[in-house]
């Protein structure tokens, strides 16, 4: 079939089964938008900023498990999107991002809206392409989807000059991909797996350390099985929330900088770490030389570069965690859950000693209460996104997650402004669930223009603004480590969030009491229109426990006992 480059883009997206594209048009990508106008195969969602288009595609991908697709123009359109690309790269989110570029003949001339897009995206994508011939487009697009979604997933950027989108060439999408240089290793080495299982059966205090890779691999239910059959306690990273259900008896909690006391102590006391799809991030490990100091380490990861990058693996297993866990399940016969009974009791004692909790306040709502309350009222019926800051950590700590792909948050890059557009993408992917975004008074302003998108495209995201009149997380560090010098973190001057939502045609609530909160949430769920629920919360609340940056996991600052203040 002889068609032009722009039509090829449409054909390829359709053949890839794409049903939703997020984007923003401009000069260099206009030929493609002209074809979008003519087609009916997928929905295009016009965001109001390119960064939001990428985050929305990320949210869509994380909720659905499919590749997220976004489209932008050259120059400023592309540079606006870079934060989103970097975010997806850090969190291993599969995306295909297509940008327009100035015509081939103008490349390198400092043409209008020209920027070296592939030069910029190289370091924040899994792979990228500058397409110089329309004849290459079918192969490039097919490769882009393949590379984005296989191995360790990630964003792939395809930059297409305007004349290439007009050029006519042969389109045949059935061509087999021949990627001699890209062959992800999905099957774990059986001998290594066997050795790992032997080590587990001999360990006295083994501990599952579950990560976001399990969600990438759609392996949560296999992992639940493995945990139950072995009777070994488990901690989750922030990215792994929902792998185990919150009420799983073997789930200790989240570990790391803001992990629970019991999780961090278990990690410090274990004699065998069983890491599944984790990357030993510094927010998790604290001081590396003290991390799980006396333990052997099993590390299952699809990315060989992730293994022994920071912590030496005693049993490295390169492979897809779903495959590997399935193999492990075959070998659980030798593992005796009763052997870990006293270890499980130790863990329970840790949890009883310093449970994850907070103190209520008679005057102001505590932010943690809001998260818990939403969990009580909506629980499994909601998908949860967050922005970045204290509210994000409280969500990770206190929301009762029941399933994988329920929680999407910017973990690796920590991008303020991620939450609202991501929640729109989540809503587009699973309209049957309520889409909640826990956000802060700082973060929400970084993409609040998306109120317009949400109204226009009927994406009734409920943004719960935990308003502490502060860039709270930075304020917390200033309080604790900078002798209370709250430099440029006071957000006392604020917009009227209710009016802001209303100005776009959304709905706003300001909430001071628990009763008002319940009423607002119930109303917002019913109304089916984008909402801001601004909750005035305690200003000086800190996220606890906290492992100061670079400190050892077992040296936590803990919640002060009531009356300590």
């Amino acid at each position, binding site marked *: 079939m002889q068609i032009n480059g722009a039509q090829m883009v449409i054909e390829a997206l359709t053949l890839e089964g794409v049903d939703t594209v997020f984007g923003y048009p401009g000069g260099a990508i206009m030929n493609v938008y002209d074809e979008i106008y003519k087609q009916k195969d997928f929905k295009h969602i016009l965001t109001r900023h390119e960064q939001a288009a990428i985050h929305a595609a990320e949210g869509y991908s994380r909720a659905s498990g499919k590749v997220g697709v976004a489209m932008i123009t050259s120059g400023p359109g592309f540079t606006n999107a870079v934060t989103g690309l970097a975010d997806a790269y850090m969190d291993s989110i599969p995306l295909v991002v297509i940008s327009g570029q100035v015509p081939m003949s103008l490349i390198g001339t400092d043409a209008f809206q020209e920027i070296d897009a592939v030069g910029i995206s*190289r370091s924040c994508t899994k792979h990228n392409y500058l397409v110089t011939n329309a004849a290459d487009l079918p192969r490039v697009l097919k490769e882009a989807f393949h590379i984005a979604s296989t191995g360790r997933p990630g964003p792939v950027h395809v930059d297409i000059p305007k004349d290439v989108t007009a050029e006519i060439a042969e389109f045949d999408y059935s061509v087999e991909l021949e990627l001699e*240089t890209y062959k992800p290793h999905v099957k774990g080495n059986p001998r290594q797996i066997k050795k790992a299982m032997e080590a587990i059966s001999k360990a006295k205090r083994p501990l599952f350390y579950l990560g976001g890779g399990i969600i990438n691999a759609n392996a949560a239910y296999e992992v639940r099985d493995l945990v139950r059959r072995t009777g070994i306690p488990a901690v989750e990273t922030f990215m792994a929330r929902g792998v185990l259900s919150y009420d799983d008896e073997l789930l200790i909690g989240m570990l790391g900088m803001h992990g629970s006391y019991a999780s961090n102590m278990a990690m410090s006391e274990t004699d065998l770490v069983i890491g599944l799809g984790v990357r030993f991030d510094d927010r998790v490990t604290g001081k590396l030389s003290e991390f799980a100091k006396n333990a052997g380490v099993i590390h299952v990861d699809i990315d060989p*570069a992730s293994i022994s990058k920071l912590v*030496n693996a005693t049993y490295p297993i390169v492979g897809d965690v779903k495959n590997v866990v399935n193999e492990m399940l075959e070998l659980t016969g030798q593992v005796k859950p009763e052997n870990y009974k006293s270890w499980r009791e130790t863990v329970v004692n840790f949890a009883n000693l310093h449970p994850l909790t907070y103190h209520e306040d008679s005057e102001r709502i505590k932010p943690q209460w809001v998260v818990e309350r939403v969990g009580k009222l909506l629980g499994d019926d909601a998908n949860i996104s967050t922005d970045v800051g204290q509210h994000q950590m409280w969500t990770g700590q206190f929301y009762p997650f029941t399933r994988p792909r329920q929680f999407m948050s910017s973990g690796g890059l920590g991008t303020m402004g991620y939450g609202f557009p991501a929640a729109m993408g989540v809503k587009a992917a699973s309209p049957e669930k309520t889409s909640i975004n826990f956000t802060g008074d700082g973060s929400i302003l970084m993409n609040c223009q998306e109120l317009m998108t949400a109204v226009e495209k009927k994406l009734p995201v409920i943004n719960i603004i935990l308003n502490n009149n502060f860039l709270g997380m930075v304020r917390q560090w200033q309080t604790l480590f900078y002798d209370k010098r709250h430099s440029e973190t006071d957000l006392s001057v604020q917009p009227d969030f209710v009016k802001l939502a209303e100005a776009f045609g959304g709905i706003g609530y300001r909430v001071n009491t628990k009763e008002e909160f319940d009423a607002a949430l119930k109303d917002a769920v019913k109304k089916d229109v984008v909402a801001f629920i601004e909750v005035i919360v305690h200003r000086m609340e800190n996220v606890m426990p906290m492992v100061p940056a670079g400190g050892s996991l077992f040296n936590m600052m803990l919640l002060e006992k009531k009356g300590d203040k």
Partner: protein
Amino acid sequence: MSDNNERRVVSVIVVNEASVLSRITDLFSGRGYNITSLTVAPIPESKYSRLTIVTSGSVRVIEQITKQLHKLIPVLRVYEHEDLVEKEMAMVKFPASENIADISTLCAAYNGKIVNVGENVIIVMVADEPKRIENFLKIIKRYSPKEIVRSGAVALER
């Protein structure tokens, strides 16, 4: 695991396509790895090129370098050499007034010769192990070299 910085030679076979070299150099600069020298040329009758990179780092860093290189999509193979034959070329320009016979003898000792004689300058080339090239460059200082160019090392496994 030692943390000593070791000199290492890494060979990389890559698909010969646009911007593949920037992918490699960006990886090194982005992750803070050293490049002492880098050479690249197409492999005859194939769609691949071969890069020889001389780098340094601890064992852990070198392991990361090879893994991260391998992660790049157009990279076919990465060899981190243990037992290899290494050669480097250097060209040096001398004033024609220097003792040409001396220089010529020296070059011969380093697999080299005079390759160009002009009115005011002579140009020589030598090809030898990188260590010996260093040596050569030290020795010829007394003949007031005007310009020196080194190719960077290339290597093959034995």
